[in-house]
Each structure stands twice: as C-alpha cells, then as structure tokens.
C-alpha cells in the first residue's frame, strides 16, 4: 500500500481525515488548555502570596 493510497482511503479520505483531524485537534487543545489553566492559577496565586509577604 502506497502512502497516496493510504491518504486516499479508498475514496473516503475526506471523511476519515476530517473525523480524525478534528478529534486529534480537540483532544490536544483540551489537554493543553487544562494544563494552561492550572499553570495560570498557580502563577497568579504565587504572585498574590509574594505580594502578601512583602506587605
């Protein structure tokens, strides 16, 4: 099986890649945003604590 055949998916390439692409994009985005919000909250809280300790 050549790479072109694999991409073509027997004529169903559009559907298969649309479904896989959207799923992969959404799952990766979900994971990244979960991590990012965690890091943001930690950072904000740490800044708050530093400010408190200075006062």
């Amino acid at each position, binding site marked *: 099986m050549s790479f072109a055949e*694999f991409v073509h*998916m*027997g*004529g*169903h*390439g559009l*559907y*298969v890649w*649309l*479904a*896989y692409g*959207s*799923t*992969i994009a*959404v*799952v990766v985005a*979900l*994971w990244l945003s*979960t*991590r990012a*919000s*965690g890091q943001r*909250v*930690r950072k904000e*809280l*740490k800044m*708050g*604590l530093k400010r408190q300790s200075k006062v």
Partner: protein
Amino acid sequence: MTIKELWHRLGSPRWFYQMMGPWGTGLGVAAALLLITGTLWGLIIAPPDYQQGNSFRIIYVHVPTALVCQSAYIMMGVAGFLFLVWRMKLADMVVKVTVPFGMVMTALGLFTGSVWGAPTWGTWWEWDARTTSMLVLLFLYFGLYALRQAIPRAESAGRACALLALVGVINIPIIKYSVDWWLTLHQPATFTLTEAPSMPAEMWLPLLVNVIGVYCLMGAVVISSLRTEILRRECNTSWVREELMGEPA
C-alpha cells in the same frame, strides 16, 4: 485503606490534591499511549469493512467520544447526589469541571458521527435515535453550563448545578427510550456488556484500546482540573501557601 477511610479522606480537598498529583500524570501518560496506539492501529492495521470500506475507520474516534460523554454525565449526576446529601466539596468541584469536558466530547461525538454519516447514510445530518439523544445531551450540558455562569455565589451555583445534574440523570433513560422508540436508523451498539462483539477481533481490539484510552483521558483531565479548582478555592489556607512555596517557580 478501607472504603470508610477513603470516604472520610475524600472530604478533604487537601488530601486529594496531594495524593492525586501522580495519578493525574499517570493517567495522562496512559491516555496518550493508548490513544496513539489505538488510533494508529485503527488507521493503518485494522482491515477495512467489507460494506463501508475505509470510512468505517471513523468508528475508532467516534465511539470512544460518544461513550465517554455519557459516562461523564452519569458521573456528574452521582457527584451531584453526593454533594447535595453530604455537602462533599470535592463532589461539587467534580460537577463543575466535568461540564466543559463533557460538552466538548459531546460536540466532538456529534461532529464525527455526522462526518461518518455522510458516506454511510448519504447525509450529514439524520434525525436518528442516537444522534438525537446525543444532541439532547449536548443541550443538557449547555443548561448546566449556563446555570453555573448565571449564579453569582459559588456555593449556590454548586448546589443548583448538582440538583440539575441529578434531575438530568433521572431523565436521561427516559429521553433515550423515547427517542429510540421514535426514530431508529443507527447500527446497533458495538459493545454491549452481555454479548461478545459481532466484529472480528482485529477490528474491535483497536476500538477497545481507544475506549480505555479516552476514559484515562477523562480521568487525567478531571483530576488535573480538580487540582486547579482546589487551589483556587482553598487559596487562603496555610496548606496551599506551603504547597505553592514548596513548588519550584
């Protein structure tokens, strides 16, 4: 550790935060490995279906997402019950962090289903039973999300959403039944608990891998967002202060 001890410990967000860090990472790694394996297996190695050809491969992304968003709602209903009856703070947070995850997964399940429907049924949207109940599930998630946004006090928002999640869980079987009975076109469920799958193993094994993978993903996402939520809510306690100061910047 006995169940009773676990129960009491779950009442303490601090214990959960400190215990669950490695669990979140572990589940995340497991989810990544399983999903990559299952997806590649399904894309490359699994044979095409003799009727549907290669469009059949969409099953490996569609079924896991469609399964996990229903489980997420049920988990939310159980958590809502725990919060209403025992006022367990952690359960409220579970309800809160599951809504966005479930909403995204439901939307994804609907989208991949629609993409699969195009070559298989010859239409991008069909008012079929399972499609429709997924759509209703999405609306239920919307309602929960909107309700939480609309109530300013966090405590009240938590209880209101817990109650709504519980009402939703009681309704889901009735909705599913009524819709099933009104519109039916879908192929029967791939996995049932009581029967062996009707497809050959080389087709359902990658699906099983992806289903387990997506449940690990749910675990990882929920645990990670729960830990964030715990920090946010307990930010004035001394243990959070120590925890944050101890961590490398």
